């Protein structure tokens, strides 16, 4: 679309509307047994998987929404529905006021999509050729192309490998190039499926900063899925957690911590062995430094320190919030327990 003045657009616009969306996959079950191959061909066993069950979701213009959930929860299915690659079995999907499937050509010119496990690059062509392809196929005016290309090359470090063939790039380089391509036409909304997959710490930081930046400056609405919860917490103000096809949580990260578990870490340096603390679990102990995990909603730090002081001489104390990954892992474990699935034994 033309580079219109997005600052004039109301920030209360609803750009994504999923209403009662259902999606069911039918999977053919096959035997690994050679003797049963023929029977399974003639009388196949079909397993129905409800990927999405009545999803209702609204996203406002300019939001950054993290879309998280365990494997198989329905995240990728949602992204495909929003990208116009899949149609819902029931319910409706409207993005930017358009039906992604019926209005496909108009719709895809206003969105950007990056799938972490896929690439839009031309395999046997240099990155420059793929970008030029994007310019022609999306009919991007040359001056806008030059401006955006300059910006993207600088921020994403594309100039290092801009004239290399796509097949010769590392995973991280391909991801950066794909992100650049997705933004070249200045989409209004960006769907990112695992965008930091395979990136080193520095590249990850640059990309997260860049995404926050384009959201702030150009009001690009962003929906991002990832298994890296720390990235999502840094990026998004809102997290939608999907579990077995339904939305299990929709809010901010702080409330997520409070509602599910306010896990904290307590680090004590002491003389002698690690003290036994009632209400806290020892996770590591080395060189006199002992790390514990506890639920701050039910256990007071002061009580733990009293216990520790009674057992040993405490030399130093440190406390901080548990990494968000720990919080999410607890949530996933709780869901698995509810479903009756065996929970993997924790590794020491």
């Amino acid at each position, binding site marked *: 679309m033309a580079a219109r003045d997005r600052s004039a657009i109301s920030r209360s616009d609803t750009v994504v509307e999923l209403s009662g969306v259902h999606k069911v996959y039918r999977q053919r079950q096959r035997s690994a047994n050679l003797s049963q191959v023929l029977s399974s061909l003639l009388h196949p066993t079909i397993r129905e998987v409800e990927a999405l069950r009545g999803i209702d979701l609204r996203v406002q213009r300019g939001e950054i929404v993290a879309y998280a959930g365990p494997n198989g929860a329905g995240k990728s299915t949602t992204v495909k529905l929003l*990208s116009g690659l*899949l149609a819902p079995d029931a319910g409706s999907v409207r993005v930017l006021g358009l039906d992604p499937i019926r209005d496909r*050509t108009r719709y*895809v010119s206003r969105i950007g*999509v990056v799938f972490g496990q896929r*690439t*839009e690059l031309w395999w*046997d062509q240099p990155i420059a050729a793929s970008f*030029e392809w994007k310019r022609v*196929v999306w009919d991007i005016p040359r001056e806008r192309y030059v401006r955006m290309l300059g910006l993207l090359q600088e921020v994403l470090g594309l100039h290092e490998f801009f004239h290399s063939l796509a097949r010769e790039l590392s995973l991280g380089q391909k991801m950066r190039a794909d992100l650049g391509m997705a933004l070249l036409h200045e989409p209004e909304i960006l769907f990112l499926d695992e965008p930091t997959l395979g990136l080193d710490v520095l590249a990850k930081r640059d990309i997260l900063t860049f995404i926050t930046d384009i959201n702030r400056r150009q009001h690009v609405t962003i929906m991002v899925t990832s298994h890296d919860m720390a990235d999502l917490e840094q990026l998004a103000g809102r997290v939608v957690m999907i579990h077995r096809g339904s939305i299990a949580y929709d809010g901010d990260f702080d409330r997520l911590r409070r509602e599910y578990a306010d896990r904290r870490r307590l680090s004590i340096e002491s003389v002698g062995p690690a003290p036994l603390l009632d209400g806290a679990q020892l996770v590591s102990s080395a060189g006199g430094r002992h790390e514990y995990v506890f639920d701050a909603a039910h256990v007071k730090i002061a009580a733990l320190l009293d216990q520790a002081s009674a057992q040993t001489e405490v030399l130093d104390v440190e406390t901080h919030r548990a990494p968000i990954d720990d919080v999410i892992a607890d949530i996933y474990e709780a869901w698995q327990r509810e479903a009756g699935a065996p929970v993997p034994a924790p590794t020491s």
Partner: protein
Amino acid sequence: MAGSSPAWTLRRLLALWRFYGAMDLKWMMRDARSLLLWTLSDVITAISAVASTLLLAARFNGIGRWSTPQITFMLGYALLVGMIPNIFFNYNVAYISRRIGRGQFDHVLVQPQPLWMILLTEGFSPFTTMLGLLPALALLAWPLGRGVHTVTIGWLAAFGLNVVASVAIALSFSLIVGSLAFWAPRAAEEINSSSWHLLESLKLFPLDGMGAGLTATLLTAVPAGFLAWYPSRALLGIDGAGYAILVTPLAAVVAVLLATWVFRRGLRQYGRTGSQRYLSFGHRR
């Protein structure tokens, strides 16, 4: 941006063809060795394809009621019909079952162009394939030079119309068969390889004297008969009936309509199921 006026459509088509043509040329010119190898490969393939039939005709002084020059003309026509899809529908557009079966059809769906426009332009590879036309032109020129038929403007127009029709029939058949991949992406991924192999091998023989059932099959369900034999027969006047010139173009209209219907059904199925497979090579041959 995506519009529907004829001017916009034409502008976009030309821009896309120009772009893909330039991309093909740049890919080709990466090194002279690639250029040489690809053109040599195309020429060798083309010659080998027709060699069996030509040698048979040379051994038996023609095949059935077809003389050697007539057979040569038919083979030139067949090669021409085979090369045109290579020029315009490369990058697995003609082998669409691969794109669908490998989960690469999503790359088509994310482009802001009507599907027909993408499929009509994305495979345009004139430079890597054009020299493969030379054997076809040579096989057509020799018998015409020997007077196998008088060449007039009208005849050339009929020739052009029939060639386009034959190509359309071949592509329609490919699209119909390839659309099976929407329903069975894994099983049908390579089905277009089989279908093209079948057409390419069967189109190289004159089909006069075959049983009615077989001839009917080769003019309907497996339309190899329309890729060289029937139109050549009509153009060379072997059949005798003047209207035969129009039969292949009419068959092409039917084939295109049928292919469109099947493909649309397939697209609806794809919208329901998506693709659970993906070969992670982006855009690739």
